[in-house]
């Protein structure tokens, strides 16, 4: 991957991390509030960081 010439703004840098953090927190709490559908949603949300990792690994330079 090449270095970008124009630096990214903090908003750009933290957009994805913020999204993942929100998904994680919502996933953790939703699982606490019930069984069944809520558990399933919690698994999906908590799997998101791992999916992102796998994608980054597949695109590694």
């Amino acid at each position, binding site marked *: 991957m090449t*270095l970008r010439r124009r630096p990214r703004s903090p908003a750009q840098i933290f957009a994805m991390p913020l999204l993942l953090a929100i998904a994680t927190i919502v996933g953790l709490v939703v699982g606490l509030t019930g069984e069944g559908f809520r558990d399933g949603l919690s698994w999906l949300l908590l799997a998101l960081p791992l999916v992102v*990792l796998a994608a980054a690994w597949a695109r590694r330079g």
Partner: protein
Amino acid sequence: MTSGSIRTWYWVHKWSGILSTLFLLMLCLTGLPLIFHDEIEALTGEDYEATLAGTPSAEGGQPLDAMLNLAMAERPGEVPLFMAFSQTSPLLTVTTGPSPDAPGDRMTLLFFDRATGRSLGPAPGGGVMDFLLQLHTDMFLGLPGMFLLGGMGVVFLLALVSGVVLYAPFMRRLGFGTLRTGRSKRLSWLDQHNLLGIVALAWMVVVGATGAINAFADPMVASWQEREVARMTAAYAGLDPLPPERYGSLDRAMASAQAALPGRSPQFIAFPGGAWSSAHHYAVFFQGDTPLTQHLLTPALIDAESGGLTDSREMPVINQALMMSKPLHFGDYGGLPLKLLWAALDVATIWVLWTGLLLWLRRRPGAVDRRVMEISQGGLADARA
């Protein structure tokens, strides 16, 4: 971000990391099998929850007095300390000890089937899982060990915060998810450390913070006992502690407690004289009646001699926070898939710690400026220096 502030945050990140990494590695490694302790215990035939059939012990079965008599017959000369119920199986446990205020290592845990009234013998224990749990909780150092690990949890949180601050200058010219594995080893470690750290960040913050809260559980319970229980049982202040031979019927006590908190399921009874009650009361702890509040316990204090209700009050906010933090630390509230995710994120944390350690151990000689430059240039210190 100026290179001066990068330098400051780098210093915070370096030292909070150095201080906590070895402890955190130990916690992550011992925590990994502990996530699956139910499954591991089932494999070794120690999981009575899965094998006993019948009404859950929290709902019914043989009378509590009969179960307690059975337990005391197995431990002559001792006194009862706790009786705990299962929400899913007839398993009922009784903890005994040489005296009402016996410390944890003098207690004996006995298992019973409340449906049949059969004794299942002493709880299996002393195995590898117990060893790991002890290491994970206090490193065999008791309360000071718990405080030390709790403190390390706080230092770990500081490392996470400073890591996020340094993520910004590092990623200024890099796209999210950058992993440069084809160049130098150091660059590869840096990218892995940054990516794994930021991706698992929220999970690490939650598990780190809830772990730190749990480390201070004992003083929080002691404070509840000193303030709240003392206030609720003010009428008994100055009386001699109730001797065990005058303990009254548990079934009558449970009936009074359930009348005070109807519709809730009991989790355990703390006997008089221990850390969870007064010197004259059975404290019957009930779960909340919704999924969210089932981790929150509310005690009903029952006069242990007469079996009548003395008082019932919600636990203070700090104790409620402690109770809510437990499932968030253990990851045991969403079935096996949640445990597997917990394990994967735990391994990710181990890798963040390991690459962080490597980055520090294998740093090339040179002033701190080189590392500050490395951060501000997205890892390419040499290309720019």
